[in-house]
């Protein structure tokens, strides 16, 4: 299992793009928002938390189809499926690798982007915490979507259509937590809900992803 | 005959219009596809029977 994780991380590094692409996309979103809504710093401060969450979500979405499609194309998935690893472990590792290459860099660099968006000082800790809690759920849900569309030739758009509705609860609680943090309100309830969703998806969704992947490998 | 709908006539009439149009389109599409598929299947079945 560790071998699979190391291989996926190594591939992400070698292919270039793996680590950097999501971050670069995030940076572009953050740069474009002021062009769209105007440069008033009080307005930016008010929407900063929401924009950063949305940017993180889109950056995640961007790289979802790579989670399984490459292994599907070169036959690795067939071989992995006949290897002594349970399919549930394979999809969990894939999701973890996706989180390490996409989600974690976003969490780490979120304060920098917060600076660009004029995020009020009180908001940094809740923002980083909410991203840290929420982005694993995004990766796990995204892996489910990737498993559903892995055999399709033009799966990219369909993948977004399938995954985005599933992202709604995570986005709502994550952005709510960050927003409440900015306004200095109590963040306990959304934080617990967000943590609950993340734990629930990590615990249960790999079974659905594995079932779907088995069907697709038939 | 027409009831007096007052100042909301537009809203009421347009929602009835939208809904009825949507329902009619849905029913029409379902029936159209049903007859088409039924006919295609009959064609294929008779052809398959003829060929043995």
């Amino acid at each position: 299992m560790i071998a699979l994780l190391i291989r996926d991380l190594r591939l992400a590094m070698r292919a270039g793009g793996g680590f950097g692409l999501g971050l670069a996309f995030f940076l572009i979103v953050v740069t474009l928002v002021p062009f769209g809504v105007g440069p008033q710093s009080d307005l930016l401060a008010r929407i900063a938390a929401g924009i950063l969450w949305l940017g993180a979500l889109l950056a995640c979405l961007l790289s979802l189809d790579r989670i399984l499609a490459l292994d599907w194309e070169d036959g690795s998935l067939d071989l992995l499926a006949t290897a002594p690893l349970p399919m549930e472990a394979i999809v969990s590792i894939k999701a973890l690798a996706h989180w390490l290459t996409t989600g974690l860099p976003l969490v780490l660099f979120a304060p920098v982007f917060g600076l660009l968006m004029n995020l009020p000082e009180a908001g940094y800790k809740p923002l980083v915490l909410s991203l840290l809690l929420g982005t694993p759920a995004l990766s796990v849900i995204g892996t489910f979507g990737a498993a559903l569309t892995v055999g399709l030739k033009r799966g990219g758009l369909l993948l977004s259509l399938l995954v985005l509705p599933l992202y709604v609860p995570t986005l709502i609680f994550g952005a709510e937590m960050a927003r409440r943090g900015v306004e200095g309100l109590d963040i306990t309830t959304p934080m617990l809900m967000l943590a609950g969703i993340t734990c629930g998806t990590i615990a249960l969704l790999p079974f659905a992803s594995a079932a779907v992947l088995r069907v697709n490998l038939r | 005959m027409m009831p007096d709908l007052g100042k909301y006539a537009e809203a009421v009439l347009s929602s009835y219009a939208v809904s009825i149009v949507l329902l009619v389109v849905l029913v029409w599409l379902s029936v159209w596809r049903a007859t088409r598929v039924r006919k295609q299947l009959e064609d294929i079945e008779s052809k398959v029977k003829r060929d043995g």
Partner: protein
Amino acid sequence: MVLNVSDLTIARGGIKVLEGISFDLAPGGAIVLRGPNGIGKTTLLRTIAGLQPPHSGRVDADPESLVYAGHSDGLKATLTVEENLVFWAQVFGNTDISKAVKSFQMARLVNRPAGMLSAGQKRRLGLARLLVTGRPVWILDEPTVSLDADAVAMFASAVRAHLARGGSALIATHIDLGLPEAEMLEVGPFRARAAELDDFDEAFL
């Protein structure tokens, strides 16, 4: 018997393609499946490998003893030969890749990225993967595609060495592999008959 197939019927896309197949594979034995394209050899191998459920009949084998190699080799172009092999060895719980490297004469290539190999070299690497898994029953689908005559001979000798160690192999191919000891199984006669017409039940036929 390491692999026992009895009265197996397989389906592709919900339609039966081959039916009533039975054979046994003994330790040290090899079976070569022959038949025209599209008859269902790949489906048969995938069913035996456990990637898809059989339509009916039984496949009896220890799933921990099978290793499957399909049309694609599952190689990563950006990883070196060594990294590719070590990865598959670790997935199957092994560490040693030297034997595989030696059998397929890949010592000169170990540090080269797999993407830089020629088609034949890639195929050899894909077959070397079988050795590092340490599993006794090889299930191979067209293993000699894009191999030249020398490489085919190399492949045959690798299979022979595997059989000599008590392993077994089930191979689908069109060409003569130069494995006279292998048993031939023509799958053509097992082709499924079309279903009865008016029997319009769960299977829609």
